[in-house]
């Protein structure tokens, strides 16, 4: 095998950040190379250099021995480099075929766009690579898994023989992930393509790659043959210290029911039915995990329970009291805290300081107030400092603007605030989305601490591993209905995956 791509002493500096620090790396022709690292380690930046979106501030890049001087996506495409971005690059109102040929449209008489030919070319690609998808369907109407296929077909249409996949499995079910890996193996074997896959799921590295490169804080820590390493070794390379993942100790027996949801119907933003007759119970001292592919009603369910979304039918009871269609404030007063799904829009006030974000919900407490209108700033700050240390928030102190902090630290602010209420009920959504492995460990420990202390926890996460790790019981949601309920210890990820797609045994969708 020859060197397909060679990075030589590549550095990339953004204002105030050294995203890539003196990276030298060779990727060979016809291999699957995995690039792993925590968020902000510089993986995407490095790949964006290869795809011509970033121009490196130092060093040189060689593709098939040729030194690259013009950095642009167009030039990269011409060199046979294709990239499937983490956030799909598709025009929702265009058809599959129109998206695939975008930028290089087949033309009629040299002027007009030839839609028929575009669809014919798409069908040919579909056949050649076995990636089934309807060329005339509009992209906004097809599933995320299919959209990813369109992305891959797009790069193949452009004649790519080097394919970069940026976190390709983040939005996929276990089955869809398997299919994707089959496709990758096939194009590498049959078409002799080179595939670079960016990920932070280590078992995927083990499953698909020939070699793996680990990045940390902009530096390339090491490159290994996949068969010579294991997940533990990779994790400690990523974090820079040993990561111990297997000592979450769950103690105590479940107590009385703290959340009760009865035959709930909720609509999504478009008015479509999102939750259709869900009933569930969460007891004190247990974690009930929701496993579902995004968009199957889990967000709407949690929003309805926490009072952020209107309930069309059914009832919610929190700590024995009716919480149906109450305001979020009223529901919190019943004893519920909430770590919301999207911390940027509903978790924090980005332009406010850490202190003010930690105070939210407690402004009226006597200790922070004088006569109900004067805020005791020094008491507030003392309180904030306490939480800041307790939850190991890392930033430039309690006066830092929250929006300037990393995702993990921002999440720590949210969790510190919500957990500090010590309520009997916790509703937690996506606790570790966009958070690195080190912080993930921290959040998991905290959540189990709350559980062991007797909190009833309803958890929703797109990360199936997380659901398995934390939950006592797991329910699967598919198209707004519960398709199964399991003890976490008695089911495998693969089985759960079937129920998540409505195909599980006895599942009715």
């Amino acid at each position, binding site marked *: 095998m020859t060197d397909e791509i060679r990075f030589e002493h590549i550095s990339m500096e953004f204002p105030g950040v050294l995203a890539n620090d003196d990276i030298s790396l060779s990727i060979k022709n016809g291999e699957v190379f995995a690039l792993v690292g925590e968020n902000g380690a510089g993986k995407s930046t490095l790949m964006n250099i290869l*795809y011509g*979106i970033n121009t490196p501030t130092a060093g040189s890049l060689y593709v098939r021995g040729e030194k690259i001087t013009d950095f*642009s*996506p*167009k030039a990269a*495409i011409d060199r046979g480099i294709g*990239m499937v*971005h983490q956030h799909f*690059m*598709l*025009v*929702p*109102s*265009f058809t599959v075929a*129109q*998206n695939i040929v*975008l*930028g*290089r*449209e087949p*033309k009629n008489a040299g*002027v*007009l*766009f030839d839609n028929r030919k575009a669809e014919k070319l798409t069908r040919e690609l579909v056949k050649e690579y076995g990636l089934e998808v309807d060329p005339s369907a509009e992209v906004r109407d097809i599933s995320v898994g299919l959209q990813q296929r369109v992305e891959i077909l797009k790069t193949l249409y452009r004649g790519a023989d080097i394919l970069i996949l940026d976190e390709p499995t983040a939005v996929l079910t276990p089955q869809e992930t398997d299919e994707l890996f089959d496709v990758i193996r096939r194009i590498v074997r049959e078409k002799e393509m080179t595939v670079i896959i960016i990920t932070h799921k280590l078992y995927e590295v083990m499953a698909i790659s020939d070699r793996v490169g680990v990045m940390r804080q902009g530096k390339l820590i090491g490159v290994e043959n996949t068969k010579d390493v294991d997940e533990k070794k990779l994790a400690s390379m990523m974090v820079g210290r040993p990561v111990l993942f297997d000592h979450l100790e769950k103690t105590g027996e479940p107590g009385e029911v703290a959340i009760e949801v009865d035959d709930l119907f909720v609509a999504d933003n*478009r*008015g*479509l*039915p999102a939750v*259709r007759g869900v009933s569930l119970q969460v007891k004190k001292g247990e974690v009930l995990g929701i496993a579902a592919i995004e968009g199957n009603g889990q967000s709407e369910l949690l929003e309805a329970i926490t009072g952020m979304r209107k309930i069309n039918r059914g009832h919610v009871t929190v700590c024995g009291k009716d919480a149906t269609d109450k305001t979020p404030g009223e529901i919190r007063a019943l004893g519920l805290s909430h770590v919301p799904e999207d911390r940027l829009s509903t978790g924090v006030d980005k332009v406010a300081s850490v202190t003010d974000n930690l105070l939210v919900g407690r402004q009226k407490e006597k200790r922070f107030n004088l006569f109900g209108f004067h805020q005791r700033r020094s008491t507030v700050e003392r309180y904030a400092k306490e939480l800041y240390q307790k939850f190991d928030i890392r930033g430039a102190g309690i006066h830092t603007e929250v929006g300037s902090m990393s995702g993990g630290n921002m999440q720590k602010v949210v969790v510190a605030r919500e957990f500090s209420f010590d309520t009997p009920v916790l509703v937690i959504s996506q606790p570790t989305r966009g958070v690195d492995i080190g912080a993930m460990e921290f959040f998991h420990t905290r959540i189990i601490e709350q559980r062991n202390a007797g909190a009833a926890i309803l958890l929703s996460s797109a990360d199936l591993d997380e659901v398995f790790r934390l939950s006592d019981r797991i329910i699967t949601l598919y*198209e707004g209905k519960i398709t199964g309920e399991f003890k976490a210890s008695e089911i495998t990820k693969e089985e759960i995956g079937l129920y998540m797609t409505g195909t599980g045994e006895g599942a009715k*969708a």
Partner: protein
Amino acid sequence: MNENSWSNILTVASSTLNQMLRSATPVALAALGGLMTEHAGIMNIGMDGMILMGAFTAAAVSTALMSAALGIVASVIFGILVGLFFALFTVKLRSDEFIIGCALNTFAMGITVYLSRSLFDSAGISNAPHLHNISIPLIRNIPFLGSVVSGHSLFVYLTWAFVILMWLFVYRTPVGFWIRASGESPETLRTAGRNPERMKWIASILCGVFCGLAGAHLSLGNLNGQFGQRMVAGRGYIAFACVIFGGANPVKVFAAALMFGFFDAIGLQLQSSKLVDPDLTSAIPYVITIIMMVYVVVSGQRRRERIAKQQLKKLELK
């Protein structure tokens, strides 16, 4: 007596439809430009000012050079410049589109009067060389149809051609696809190796050109070589409404403009009949515009509800 009133009705009907085509044209022209910026993801409320300046340029150059054709050419050149100006601020310098649009409208009101005063010693222009109406042989002799379709200025017929051309451009050419992609998902276009900003520049320039033409039509086609500060009368905003109403599809947008033209014509008829206060009748097309916009929202909701019901049915069938 009976026959007489029947032919009266026909005359009123044909002159109303004739006026409809006339009134719809400046709105349709501007809207053809506005739909380009709409597709490119630029909110353009500056069309009113673009039209006004286009009207002034056409009238002024036509007067100065004693040629309506050169006036029109000047309005096109001016349209390119104003499009470049608009793109410079909204695309290159990333200023707020809304503010730039407002500024353009206010600026147009001032600069046209100022230039008119300093060049022609008057706040308006009159008697500039203008376009003559075209009487189409054969068609003009067809009863009813002839009196509706024939006898308009060149712009009316050009607009029809432009509607078809722009439809082809937007939905059937690669550049049309790129312009739409530049508005809907600019980064997608960038990763496809095309520059979304360039598409926005093109859309903005096209918008300027069409607004310039709309202005030239107002001063040299619709009126007989006149310019006045208030002559645009909010048509830029109406055009914007038509763009939204027609979903930025040239054919649908033209239909929306025709609807505006129809109610404008009705208003004028009522005005000449002296049955209703003229201030009230001239408000008709604008009231209709508001109703149209409400309709857009309501029908959008209905459509979503319908889709929701269909999906629900599908789910239940499973």
